[in-house]
């Protein structure tokens, strides 16, 4: 008896149309300015804050989030150490995660966060608040350039994050802070 796999592949082979070409996608360029990124991010509930230099990061974080007790970050001495073995009940208590991102996308306010920058895969969504640290020279205009920045693929797990978690499932009223981060600030240096 043939397997489901064989039957599905045979049916797809038998029923597919004549081959059509795979188009080449042009490199749609556009505005990759920080101003554009800031405006779009603000329109989706996020925020850009200038950082004079990376050396100011820790002080700026404590200044901007004075009430955050449990802060996780690979960029300075955190108040809570997180790695990929951290158990769920510890992750559940994180107030703020401060994570480096590789680049930002000006057209939609998204940033690329690969697994290597997350400490734990759940951290970017389980934390109550989220701060990303972005080198302002690492801005691309559109998603075409964004994927061109990933020649080796997206890694084991990686995400574009555009603003804080949100929902409009109750009467189309926008509510920030559905299941993931309640707020998102991109610290740009």
């Amino acid at each position, binding site marked *: 008896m043939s*397997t*489901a*796999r064989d*039957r*599905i*592949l*045979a*049916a*797809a082979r*038998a*029923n*597919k*149309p004549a*081959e059509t*070409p*795979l*188009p080449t*996608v*042009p490199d*749609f360029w556009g505005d990759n300015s920080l101003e554009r990124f800031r405006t*779009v991010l603000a329109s*989706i509930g996020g925020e850009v804050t200038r950082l004079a230099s990376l050396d100011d990061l820790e002080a700026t974080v404590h200044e901007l989030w004075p009430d955050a007790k449990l802060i996780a970050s690979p960029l300075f001495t955190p108040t809570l150490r997180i790695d*990929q073995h951290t158990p*769920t009940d510890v*992750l*559940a208590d994180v107030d703020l995660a401060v994570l480096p991102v590789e680049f930002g*996308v000006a*057209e*939609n*306010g998204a940033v690329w966060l690969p697994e290597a920058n997350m400490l734990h*895969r*759940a951290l970017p*969504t*389980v934390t109550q608040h989220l701060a990303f640290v972005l080198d302002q020279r690492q801005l691309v205009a559109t998603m*075409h350039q964004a*994927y*061109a920045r990933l020649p080796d*693929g*997206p890694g*084991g*797990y*990686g*995400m*574009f*994050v*555009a*603003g804080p*978690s949100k*929902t*409009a*499932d109750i*009467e*189309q*009223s926008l*509510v920030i*802070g*559905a*299941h*993931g*981060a309640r707020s998102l600030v991109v610290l740009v240096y």
Partner: protein
Amino acid sequence: MSYLTHASRAEAFNLDHERTSWHDETLWFVRQKRDKAVYAVPEFQELRNLASAIKDHTLSRLDEYLAQFEAAAQTNGVRVHWAADAAEHNAIVLDIIRARGATRVVKSKSMLTEECHLNPYLIKEGIEVIDTDLGERIIQMRDEPPSHIVLPAIHLKKEDVGATFFKHLGTAEGLTDPQQLTEAARQHLRAKFLAGEVALTGVNFAIAETGSVVVCTNEGNADLGVSLAPVHVASMGIEKLIPRLSDLGVFTRLLARSATGQPVTTYTSHYTKPMPGREMHIIIVDNERTQQLGRPDFRASLKCIRCGACMNTCPVYRRSGGHSYDFTVPGPIGSILSPNIDLKKHSTLPFASTLCGSCTDVCPVKIDIHVQLYKWRQIVSEANHLPTAKKIGLKFMGRLLASPTAFKLSGSFGRRALRLLPYGLTHNQTVNAWAIARELPEPPQQSFREWFAQQPQPAT
């Protein structure tokens, strides 16, 4: 066996005039947000052409891309399963859950698992399945199907949600503030996420060259579920494939703009490999899709990326509600997908359209939806699934319109009859269904043909 028609279910929805108007206006507002987002991208029409061509190409080599995807995913340490139909899919999911000895499942949005009726199947087997998308959780508590593929609870008002949460989550009676209701759901679902043993997700895009699956959400529920649970099961239809990672540049620019007018979804997550010590499974499902692939007139429906733009723009969907379609995917796209599954049961859906073509205009992958609706009508008619009155009416009109003499006579008779006969007869809703919600036009004194004959003939 006879089925309720779309029209009769739409009639029930329309009993609440106020709510029908609200539904209509709310979805039109989403359509307007879509327009604003689309017009801001100068190359949007070019992106639609590219998306359409990429999907056409993928379908034309679907077997090869499926095999490539499977091999890449297996190299990544993912277990790939194949399911010919819903029953096979559901059994595979249950086996994976049972193999872990798990009972607590968190699930993010997946229209495919709705199509397979996975939830009732698992619940019957003693598994707790929690839908974690807010809209889906609301309707799960109410034991209702989604009424829209992107906005599953769009048929509900905040008072309904308040009453549901009062009953199931113990929120204050009469609470209707969306912010507070969402917070209550957040707290309730956090506990479920933290306790989840198996996370189920759908798939927005599957990348053949990398073996990755991509899931797009605004709430972050897919990521939270998957990254906390030891096992991830992603269910995908065979049509979710795209060849290259770079093709996502096209699709991520189209999806959210077309769906809700956002520049992109909050989370665009790429799942390629499981964490060490964890499991990732992908179930590739056919469930009649290869049959649709074999229908030249209808195979383009498999290009759909489930943005819901055709629903938001459809004058019939907006005024009849998603439940009136009685199919997993409602609206125009559902009306061309459903006859492939069960022609008789869904025979009235291709008629739930004015054929205005607005669905085709907004479709980000350029599916000729209204043309396919028209073509399904022919097939429904040939299969003899038309209601008798419609069948006789169409036959009569066909003869009338084919004969110039009959057309002329009936026109002159109609104009006279409309003038002379009492309103109660010409607008009798039993014999004239057209008049149920419409006025007939004031009859003119003469026909165009009569008027034209009286005009001076142009010099030759």
